[in-house]
């Protein structure tokens, strides 16, 4: 009884680790105040679901989901390149609202609030991932690969340039670096991983609708990244485990699902407000959010 449930939790944690570590690449390491990360997640989920429905093989749809999200990442940085601080944050939030309303209203493509049911389980090289255990292994492999790639990126000379962009953009420009290029590259990588996380999510729960990709989701992602620490991959991973597991304690109280949902949101919001008041750079964080 407990094992299938634990597997389910671990799959979600794996998907969220990809999401939060990639958000930290943009938000923490590069200083791009992106409150619209959930939009990339949604774009990835819808792209992959719709493509496989149209007969595209899973592996191809999975990659295209990432690439498609990453194109939007480029466009977002291009459009917002002149904004700073809270205006940038709000524009990215506005971007996620625009994507959300497209999912909701472009009914010809997305079926709007009805969502897309019956998304097939991934199959490639002749094997189909149908059981949750094998899905866990699949997610774990993708998750470890993603974290490894992002880890190598932030430790590389390119990663140092990203951190320099965050700390002293003007100084870096004086040294002749094109900071716009650095920013959109970082955002594109970040969005790519959010996109593939979206694909993993869509094919795991096999049903998506626009309500998965709204403000409460943004609060959850921000809580995880900020609690774990700004510009800390280790922090994001640890914090994903902790924050996703905390509300599970509510399950033992046998609450009805109409209470469980809001109660979980209350917990996430209180964690976010608490960490902002107590230690705004997070537990393993190295820099402040500016």
């Amino acid at each position, binding site marked *: 009884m407990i094992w299938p449930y634990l597997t389910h939790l671990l799959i979600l944690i794996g998907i969220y680790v990809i999401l939060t570590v990639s958000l930290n690449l943009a938000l923490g390491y590069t200083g791009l105040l992106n409150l619209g990360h959930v939009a990339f997640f949604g774009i990835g989920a819808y792209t992959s679901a719709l493509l496989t429905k149209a007969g595209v093989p899973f592996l191809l749809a999975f990659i295209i989901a990432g690439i498609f999200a990453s194109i939007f990442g480029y466009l977002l940085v291009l459009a917002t390149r*002149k904004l700073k601080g809270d205006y940038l944050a709000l524009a990215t939030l506005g971007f996620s609202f625009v994507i959300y309303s497209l999912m909701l209203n472009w009914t010809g493509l997305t079926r709007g609030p009805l969502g897309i049911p019956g998304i097939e389980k991934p199959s490639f090289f002749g094997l189909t991932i149908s059981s949750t255990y094998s899905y866990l292994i699949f997610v774990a492999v993708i998750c470890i690969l993603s974290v490894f790639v992002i880890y190598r990126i932030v430790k590389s000379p390119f990663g140092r340039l990203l951190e320099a962009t965050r700390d002293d953009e003007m100084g870096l420009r004086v040294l002749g670096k094109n900071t716009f290029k650095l920013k959109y590259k970082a955002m594109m990588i970040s969005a790519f991983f959010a996109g593939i996380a979206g694909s993993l999510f869509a094919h795991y729960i096999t049903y998506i609708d626009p309500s998965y990709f709204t403000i409460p989701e943004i609060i959850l992602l921000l809580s995880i990244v900020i609690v774990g620490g700004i510009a800390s991959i280790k922090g994001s991973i640890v914090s994903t485990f902790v924050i996703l597991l905390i509300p599970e304690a509510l399950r033992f109280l046998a609450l009805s699902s109409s209470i469980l949902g809001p109660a979980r949101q209350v917990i996430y919001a209180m964690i976010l407000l608490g960490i902002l008041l107590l230690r705004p750079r997070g537990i393993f964080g190295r820099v402040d*959010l500016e």
Partner: protein
Amino acid sequence: MSLLAQLTVNGLIAGAIYALVAAGFSLIYSTNKFMHFAHGISVVVGAYILYSLFSLIGIPFYLACILTLIFSSLFGLGTYRLMYLPLQNKKASNVVLLIASIGVLILFQNVIQLIFGPDVKSVGYIKVARGLNVFGAIITPLQIVIILISITLFVLLYLFMKKSKLGRDMRAVSDNKELASIMGINHKRIADYSFIIGSFLAGVAGILIGLEQNLNPTMGTILIIKGFTGAVIGGVGFIPGAVLGSFLLGLAENFSIWFLPSGYKDAIAFVLLFIFLLLKPTGLFGINKDVKK
């Protein structure tokens, strides 16, 4: 012709509500220079307080309204004193304050949902009345009251900001906080008052929404997005601009159904918000030095 009149009337009613939200938001922004996104939940808290006092407990309507307004003002003051002020004392950046305000919005939205449940509630003070016919448009007496109350409040707010000592102090802090404190204006006191007055306006919006439509806990998010979009269109820190921008938004939304499916009505605000933030973050009438600092 009657369609034109009806869309105009609908646009003005929507605009009046958005403008009440935007005016309070903009007042708070102008003196504090950060985005009080949780302003949306002040409106919802107001509406649910009215529902509890009047519909559940049965307190006389006008007394319930006064209590609602007092409570909303205190709620706004509370968010400032308990959340934003401690953060400001820790030298938190505007982005941290923005994230905190979204956190407050989601927190209370779910607290309301836990207390009252997710289903819609209705205050039910005003029985459905027969609409009046004005130039071919149907408008209910309540809707006329909504437009009149909001316009009266905007005139009073304008006079208050222009003529009263407190209003002038607020504009001084808004213009230059350092200089204002040198002149002996206590900016923390001004911040208190801006939250009280701004949230009072949110309370008025909450009451009017409670009378006009059904309540649900998640309406705060959409309301603050509308109010905020109105404020951005007109100029965030400039209250008359925010009010005009909100009326423009209300009209734009309602006229959009001429050429777009009605499902896109809410999307209009998102798209306008995004376009204005990117192309003209100072808004149509605003002067704002902080956008690209």
